[in-house]
């Protein structure tokens, strides 16, 4: 399978890339890891006139932590970098749990977190993770940079909030105010298949009391689902069997799964319920041990 013809440019600076986007006038696509875009080009679901390869832009392959605890992931940071990250392993359990579950090991060598957010596939793991963490995307256009909360960044299936002349240069996870806990679980028929269902949970606690919670769902709706009511059920008290069960029930209710070859809607809802319970129960048990 060949993509249809396109003009190819490989700029060396963000400014040059933005100028090319402006030239493209909405008929251009940015190429980062390419693990979703190249298949789309080959299947001719996408046939841009201009393909702007950003892999040569310098200084975007980072992931780092600010002194205050803010985590920043550059547009060319690959999934494999996050999978092997000491920063995430020690500071960010939801992201650390998700990184090894994205696609397969070979795809993870190329694909990027920021690209995954931009692609806005309802099956994308990172959109759920960053949603649960209350993160945002930094977009750069001709007039400078702006922050877009990820809940507003993903506007629908395969749709994002970038203007045609903007580049998503960075994803940002805000500094936690309390102790961080959480996880990510995904059911897939085999490695690399789309998720039957996935659940991201991120909480912060002050002492035992949950001060912030985020729960987001992968693959059980036409876009990433931010289960805000489920998350609210956790805030203001310590984790307990009751609050966990309540959050799990509300998350299952927030899911909008469809029956397909991966399972029935009822089955997928049950997975969501089980995964929320499982992640939170593990958090509760490990904090009991630590306490």
């Amino acid at each position: 399978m060949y993509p249809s013809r396109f003009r190819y440019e490989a700029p060396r600076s963000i400014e040059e890339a933005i100028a090319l986007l402006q030239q493209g006038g909405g008929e251009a696509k940015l190429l980062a890891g390419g693990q979703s875009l190249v298949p789309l080009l080959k299947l001719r679901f996408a046939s841009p006139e201009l393909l702007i390869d950003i892999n040569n832009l310098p200084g975007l392959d980072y992931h780092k932590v600010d002194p205050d605890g803010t985590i920043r992931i550059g547009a060319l940071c690959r999934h494999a970098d996050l999978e092997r990250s000491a920063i995430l392993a020690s500071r960010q359990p939801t992201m650390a749990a998700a990184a090894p579950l994205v696609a397969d090991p070979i795809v993870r060598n190329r694909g990027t977190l920021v690209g995954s957010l931009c692609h806005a596939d309802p099956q994308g793991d990172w959109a759920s993770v960053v949603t649960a963490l209350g993160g945002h995307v930094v977009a750069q256009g001709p007039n400078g940079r702006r922050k877009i909360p990820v809940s507003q960044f993903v506007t629908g299936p395969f749709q994002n909030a970038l203007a045609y002349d903007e580049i998503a240069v960075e994803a940002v996870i805000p500094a936690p105010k309390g102790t961080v806990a959480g996880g990510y679980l995904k059911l897939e028929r085999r490695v690399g298949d789309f998720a039957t269902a996935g659940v991201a949970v991120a909480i912060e606690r002050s002492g035992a009391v949950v001060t912030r919670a985020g729960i987001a769902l992968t693959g059980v709706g036409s876009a990433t689902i931010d289960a805000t009511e489920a998350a609210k059920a956790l805030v203001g008290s310590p984790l307990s069997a009751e609050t966990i069960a309540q959050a799990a029930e509300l998350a299952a209710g927030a899911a909008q799964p469809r029956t397909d070859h991966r399972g029935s809607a009822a089955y997928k809802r049950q997975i969501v319920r089980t995964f929320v319970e499982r992640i939170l129960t593990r958090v509760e048990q490990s904090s009991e041990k630590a306490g």
Partner: protein
Amino acid sequence: MSGLFEEIHEQPAADVPTRRVSITVNGDKRVAQVEPRLLLAHLLRQGLKLTGTHTGCDTTNCGACTVLFDGKPIKSCTMLAVQADGHEVTTVEGLAGASELHPIQEGFKDEHGLQCGFCTPGMMLAAKALLEENPDPTEDEVRWALSGNLCRCTGYQNIVKSVMWAAKKMQAQSAS
């Protein structure tokens, strides 16, 4: 030669924009004039006649087209040839030495790690990257590293054994 690529000997047709790329393939610098939409897998197979790189699913699932790109396994059906400009690519043809098989190839031979052989080049290159990062993997780690490569014949048992065999051999070699 016609079509989407030609090794550089003459000027390409004027009406189709092409780019000159210079790629180090198995240690040799290769220069080609390619259309930007040409996939790396096709440049390797048809342009450079390195047909050990197989294309299976064409949709980033199967891993038969796996090559090493600057030492890391990638699916060459999911990268444009122009993206490899200035980079190093290792295909299965680059595994063996002048007279000896690579220990990974020996392992696949000794442990019957293949039946039809279609997935084998990709399996061996993914295994090579694993053993460079982790010379003494567990069986689980081998399975994990190869989980992006599909085999429809073997049930994976002998593939895992082959990689474990190669790991032992390579450790013995580096110890001696």
